């Protein structure tokens, strides 16, 4: 079997279709209104991280209030609700979704599948500018009378648009408009990611030879294209309720002693629409993370990913299942118990493909040549954190367990672990991994180690105690506890501890940002393929890859993305574009 390579005639260079590659004519079209996916990726990432910093600061303010209530004059109850809302929405939509799909998707898809660019570069450029507009509209809501909305990130009506809720006037409308813009912008980008993966792969790059990163981003984009419309519908109808006084979601209601004109709308309908988007959203964030982490583990453990096909199937199955679990967010909305039973079952079924992924990551590591590089550390931290967050998900997926835990800090701890900390660890790992490709220099190792350990251990010191607070019954979203009989004094001490750690972890991120800037100028030169990876993005002529990604000819792919430690090969890895004559094809499993 090992000599199969010899039988295969060498296949000549790909006959590349004459793609009309857009060539920038000026500095502005090259770096500002750029149609190059790599530039767009960096624009997306920079914008997402910038708005993410706002969310980070908001989380500090919340923690200050929770740790030391009644100590800060500038945090009123209504500010606190605005912080919660904006923190949640920014992190989930404007940071994580935009960074994984707009950032990593744009950078990696064309490079990894061997394309010169996205298939619709102009639309891709528009996608970024609409995203930026959405972010600006969101930021603008901080400066309107009444401030941003304080309805909670789920924006449930009727309270979201009733006076009394912070930002019920302009704040909520700007939020909804911003979301609608985001969705329009995203759809333009998503169209590109999906079509590029399907149609613009290079010769020999079959779907099942794609790196798992591309599979993750591709499937997540499909989910997003199908799920975001639900949020769009909700946003449009709620905007009309707020601005025109229609009653899509607004029931007959007395607000502040006054009977409002609304009547007959269904708040539950909004919840269904919101979570029909909201649950797939979890996987829109998680699937790219799964894909990226698989590749990080494989590269840095010098071993092919265990059960590649199974990993792809798991991604696809998780994606499909994510559309039939949404109502597990609504167990306390008064639903029919059979309805809850159905959704609890589907929710628990998702644990099966997810567990397959976790086992396969572990088995890839089993007796592998693990290099404890920074990307590997973050990948390992992700696995641990994701398992932690996943297991508490099993608690909350069961109706009977969820009901008492609903709206407690336990929920907060669960989703922060599973879709806050875990994906962000992957983002850091991915940045440490691909930074050499993007800049040609390595990130500083010492600063990276410091950043990793403070972030990883700090995240656990923050979120593990929050699980415990949830079990005590501490409710989420409360501005302050006051004196209650069921919350002991120790819970307050714990809150102080969490706040202090949160501030330290937050400040530690500055080390990371400093590292990113410092290494760009003074970092060690990376050269070609510093991690000895097989995938195409590392096989470009120039580092960082230039316009058009590859040289005159596109690479031709002869193997899957995981040829590490192939018997008989001269190196411990064989790049995907190495013709088989030089190294025999991998023996069958």
């Amino acid at each position, binding site marked *: *079997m090992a000599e*199969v390579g010899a039988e*295969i005639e060498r*296949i000549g260079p*790909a006959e590349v279709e004459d793609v009309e590659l857009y060539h920038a004519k000026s500095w502005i079209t090259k770096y500002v209104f750029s149609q190059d996916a790599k530039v767009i990726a960096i624009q997306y990432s920079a914008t997402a991280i910038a708005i993410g910093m706002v969310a980070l600061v908001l989380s500090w303010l919340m923690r200050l209030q929770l740790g030391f209530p009644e100590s800060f004059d500038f945090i009123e109850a209504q500010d606190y609700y605005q912080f919660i809302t904006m923190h949640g929405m920014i992190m989930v939509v404007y940071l994580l979704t935009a960074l994984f799909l707009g950032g990593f998707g744009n950078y990696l898809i064309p490079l990894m599948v*061997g394309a010169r660019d996205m*298939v*619709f570069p102009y639309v891709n450029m528009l996608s970024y500018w609409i995203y930026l507009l959405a972010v600006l509209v969101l930021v603008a809501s901080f400066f309107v009378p009444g401030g941003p909305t304080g309805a909670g990130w789920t924006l449930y009506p009727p309270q979201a648009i009733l006076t009394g809720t912070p930002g019920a006037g302009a704040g909520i409308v700007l939020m909804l408009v911003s979301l609608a813009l985001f969705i329009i912008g995203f*759809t333009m980008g*998503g*169209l590109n990611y999906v*079509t590029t993966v*399907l*149609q*613009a*792969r*290079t*010769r*020999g*790059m*079959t*779907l*099942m*030879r794609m790196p798992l990163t591309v599979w993750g981003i591709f499937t997540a984009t499909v989910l997003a*294209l*199908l799920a*975001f*419309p*639900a949020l*769009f*519908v909700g946003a*449009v*109808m709620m905007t*009309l309720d707020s601005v*025109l*006084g*229609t*009653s*899509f979601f607004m029931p007959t209601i007395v607000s502040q002693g006054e009977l409002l*004109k609304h*009547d*007959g*709308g*269904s708040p539950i309908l909004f919840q269904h*629409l919101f979570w*029909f988007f909201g649950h797939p959203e979890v996987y829109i964030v998680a699937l790219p993370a799964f894909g990226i982490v698989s590749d990080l583990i494989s590269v840095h453990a010098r071993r*092919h990913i265990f059960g*590649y*096909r199974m990993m*792809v*199937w798991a991604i696809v199955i998780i994606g499909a299942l994510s559309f039939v679990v949404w109502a597990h967010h609504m167990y306390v909305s008064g639903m029919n118990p059979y309805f809850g039973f159905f959704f609890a079952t589907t929710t628990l079924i998702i644990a099966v493909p997810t567990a397959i992924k976790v086992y396969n990551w572990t088995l890839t590591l089993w007796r592998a040549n693990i290099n404890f590089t920074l990307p590997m550390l973050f990948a390992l931290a992700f696995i641990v954190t994701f398992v932690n967050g996943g297991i508490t998900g099993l608690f909350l997926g069961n109706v009977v367990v969820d009901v008492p835990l609903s709206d407690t800090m336990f929920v907060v701890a669960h989703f922060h672990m599973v879709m806050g900390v875990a994906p962000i660890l992957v983002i850091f790992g991915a940045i440490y991994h691909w930074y050499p490709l993007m800049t040609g220099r390595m990130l500083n190792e010492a600063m990276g180690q410091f950043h990793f350990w403070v972030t990883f251990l700090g995240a656990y010191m923050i979120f593990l105690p929050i699980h415990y607070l949830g079990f005590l019954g501490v409710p989420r979203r409360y501005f302050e506890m006051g004196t209650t009989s069921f919350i002991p004094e120790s819970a307050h001490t714990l809150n102080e501890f969490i706040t202090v750690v949160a501030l330290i972890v937050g400040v530690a991120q500055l080390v990371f940002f400093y590292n990113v800037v410092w290494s760009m100028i003074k970092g060690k030169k990376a050269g070609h393929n510093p991690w000895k990876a097989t995938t195409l993005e590392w096989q470009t002529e120039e580092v960082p890859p230039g316009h058009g990604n590859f040289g005159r000819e596109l690479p031709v*792919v*002869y*193997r*899957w993305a995981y040829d590490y430690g192939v018997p008989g090969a001269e190196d411990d890895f064989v790049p995907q574009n190495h013709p*088989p004559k030089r190294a025999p*094809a*991998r023996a*069958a*499993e």
Partner: protein
Amino acid sequence: MNIIEQLRQKPWTAEQVRIDDAHGGRAYVLPTAKLGLRILLTAITVLLSLFVVAYSDRMVVSDWRPLPEPWLLWLNTLVLIGSSVAMQRGLIAVRQGRIERFKASLLVAGGSAVVFLLGQLWVWRQLVELGYFAASNPANAFFYLLTALHGLHLLGGLVAWTRLVARLTHGDTRRLRMGMELCTIYWHFLLVVWLIFFALLLYS
């Protein structure tokens, strides 16, 4: 492309390597622009279906008071059908290389789409004059919402149409034909959407 078959491939085996090395890299023979349009239409279909779901959910509540159907809506529907027919005729013409006929049909199609939009606005005006405001009943609100959504999508189509018309004088036939194919698909799609919406409005 059979997705199940794809997912069952074992990329590491020698037999599969031989097949895969010869693979050109595309999943569909379809032109890329057409596939892109289909994906977009899928997303729009999800969007509009969710509105239909919301509509049906609300329709069954007892306070639902349907609005009168102005006869103008029937006329508008005919105009939109005419627009789609003209598009189709244009497409056939450009496929046969009859450029003059293609240009004429394209202009008729776009023109009638504009007439349709103006007609829809006229319907809105009539209803507002009769006192059917968006806030007065959910049926009214849905009527305005659905017609507005459909109109906005058609307006988006007209942007593409304008770009196609702008290319008429200097574009080569191959690109004109592709543009025409895309416009026609989109026009037919929006016609079907309108017929479904119209049926829904009548049904209530």
